[in-house]
């Protein structure tokens, strides 16, 4: 695919950048947040409304559904501009980038009318119910069952690592609707109202001390059969196949955030650099290595966006590993550099949070190990494990 920057794309970028140049400082001022101060989850939720009200929501969504209808290269520019000004990151990411596009492709007219506009205007939040205690990397072995009873399904089981389940109005869940067939068959994709009786959400405190993800228990939870997206028992295909480009853009957005952090590392190094020439050289090296890591990520993001359909999965896997491992390296070096040189506790702490969070990045959305299996088998053609 040719990713040449068209005049239209450049004009779009310029208009969006111009809006962000004033909107972000104004938003920051309205919340009395200092420059560089981390955004809280409520900040980020408010920002989503600001973006919607200004007409900049839904970069990948078609115009007829209220989105911007951007090409893939324009979407990358969109996320690059957001990263450039440290705009708050989206909370409703799984709604806008995963469920929304899935509904657009597979949803019924009723489902589209009911849910799409509330995703876009950020009045309803979503969580993704995929992983289970015994079904992590091996997702297809999931055990939560949905038994058809009249015109309702009855759900029993447990989900885990459910980000923002405590905030969400709805979950889109992958559940087993047919226990008589093999793993991948017999799974369905359905919408669950989080206020339904029988649902219990228990927060999990993560490594950083935050409570963003949760366990979700289902005890005879009744879900209308019309909440199934697509056909029953075809959930696996939909969960994997329809979202490949969304995943690429999602990770690309994170790579651009990492690039912005490399710029901040550079600024910090240049303010801090003093003392012996050896310490000076070491900081300069750290700064340059961060630039290289971030540059490679950025190129990998554009390369992934240009991927042909048959290589989207493996090139996407390459991007995910490149970003997550490169970001971890960058932050680990930063922590080493801060140890010796940064007297400000607050500054050290803000980087420490990012560093701690980075430990999750090689685990979620496909562990590095699973992604290396995918690359070696599907890209390099190496034989699958012999049984």
């Amino acid at each position, binding site marked *: 695919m040719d*990713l040449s920057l068209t005049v239209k794309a450049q004009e779009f970028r310029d208009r969006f950048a111009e809006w962000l140049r004033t909107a972000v400082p104004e938003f920051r001022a309205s919340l009395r947040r200092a420059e560089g101060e981390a955004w809280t989850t409520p900040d980020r939720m408010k920002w989503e409304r600001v973006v919607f009200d200004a007409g900049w929501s839904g970069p990948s969504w078609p115009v007829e559904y209220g989105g911007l209808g951007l090409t893939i290269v324009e979407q990358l520019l969109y996320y690059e501009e957001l990263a450039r000004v440290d705009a708050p990151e989206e909370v409703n990411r799984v709604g806008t980038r995963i469920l929304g596009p899935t509904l657009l492709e597979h949803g019924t007219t009723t489902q589209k009318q009911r849910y799409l506009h509330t995703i876009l205007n950020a009045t309803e939040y979503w969580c993704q119910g995929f992983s289970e205690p015994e079904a992590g990397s091996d997702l297809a072995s999931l055990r939560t069952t949905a038994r058809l009873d009249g015109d309702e399904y009855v759900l029993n089981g447990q989900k885990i690592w459910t980000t923002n389940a405590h905030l969400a109005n709805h979950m889109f869940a992958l559940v087993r609707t047919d226990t008589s067939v093999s793993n991948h068959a017999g799974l369905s994709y359905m919408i669950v109202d989080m206020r339904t009786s029988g649902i219990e959400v228990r927060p999990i405190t993560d490594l950083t001390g935050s409570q963003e993800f949760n366990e979700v228990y289902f005890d005879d939870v009744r879900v209308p059969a019309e909440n199934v997206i697509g056909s029953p028992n075809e959930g696996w295909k939909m969960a994997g196949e329809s979202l490949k480009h969304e995943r690429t853009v999602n990770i690309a957005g994170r790579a651009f955030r990492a690039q912005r952090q490399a710029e901040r590392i550079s600024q910090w190094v240049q303010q801090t650099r003093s003392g012996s020439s050896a310490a000076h050289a070491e900081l300069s090296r750290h700064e340059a290595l961060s630039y290289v890591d971030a540059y490679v990520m950025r190129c990998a993001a554009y390369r992934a966006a240009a991927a042909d359909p048959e290589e989207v999965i493996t090139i996407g896997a*390459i991007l995910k590993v490149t970003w997550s491992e490169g970001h971890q390296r960058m932050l680990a070096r930063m922590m080493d550099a801060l140890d010796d040189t940064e007297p400000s506790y607050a500054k050290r702490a803000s980087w420490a949070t990012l560093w701690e969070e980075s430990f999750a990045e090689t685990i979620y959305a496909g562990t590095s190990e699973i992604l290396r299996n995918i690359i070696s088998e599907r890209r390099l053609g*190496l034989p699958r494990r012999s049984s």
Partner: protein
Amino acid sequence: MRFALTEEQQMFQDAIQSSFENLNPQDWEASWQAAAQLGALDMFAQPMKSPDESLMDFAVFAQAAGRYLNDWPWLESALWVPTLVSITRGSDYAEWLTAWSTGKNLTTVAWEHQGSSDPFDGAKAAIDGSRISLHGLKHRVPHMSKAGSALITARAQGEAILLLLPLDDSEGITISDESPVGGPGTAAVHFDITTTSSVVLASGPEAETLFALSLRYATLMRCFEMLGGAREVLDRTVSHVTSRQQFKTAIGSFQAVKHQLASVSIAVENLAATAYFTLDAVIAGNSDVDTAIAATKVHANQTYLDACKTGIQLHGGFGYTWEAGLHRFLKHARMRAEQFGSTESRLREISRHLEDSV
């Protein structure tokens, strides 16, 4: 920006590969003729006063040269020096080109000086009327003993100068071969010569600007060459672990093997992405390309060496033998990592650029 070849470039690549496949990569003359037959010389002989799409074609050529370890000075002779000569010699360029197109003007470039990031360091020149004397030492000069002429960087009274020196007379030139056994040809060259000052191509700020411009293209093409080499090592290793059986199964089915090759594949694909992305920025004339080129070279150094290290390891004992042929890639990777800015010197350069940009 484009990450894939056009149909035409794909055909060109196939033609180069099938031509190079049957060549002895050490045979300069045959390599030159093969390139000429493919029309590559005509294509690259276009004066390149500003970067354009033909650099994409050259990137294809560079990758093939890396894959087949072409050990003739294709980069110096087909892109770097012609670029400078076309700019500086103007109307004389056609004459020079005639000699060049017959293979008589295979050229090398002597510019690096150990421990210095200034490409004009190491050699001093003094111009006296129609004569010029040149003294000094240049390192990592490829193919010095076989080339017909050499582009040399030096300083004359502190000013940068560029010389294109015919090498038909070796008096005053001492070549200390530094080629690794089984590796590409390279030497430290000591100059102590006096010759006609017509060898001067450019001087002063013009020389510095022109050299920086041509070095930009050359470094990026070197990265594409390294990409070709790394890809070849990866392909050979994938093929080996797919056919080599132990414990009654292909060793490539073991996760410990798969994951190492996946890591090489990630690095190689990222080198391709980075090199093409940077090339696009060069063609577009973006202002910050030097930092991007330095980053690409750092990534190329690491990727090529890692591909060789993993390739040798996964070939087992056979990988450590001359017969496996991986030694040539390893030595090539080591040499290329040193040339055109080592990792450490390129990292220092990136830091300097970042400081300047604040």
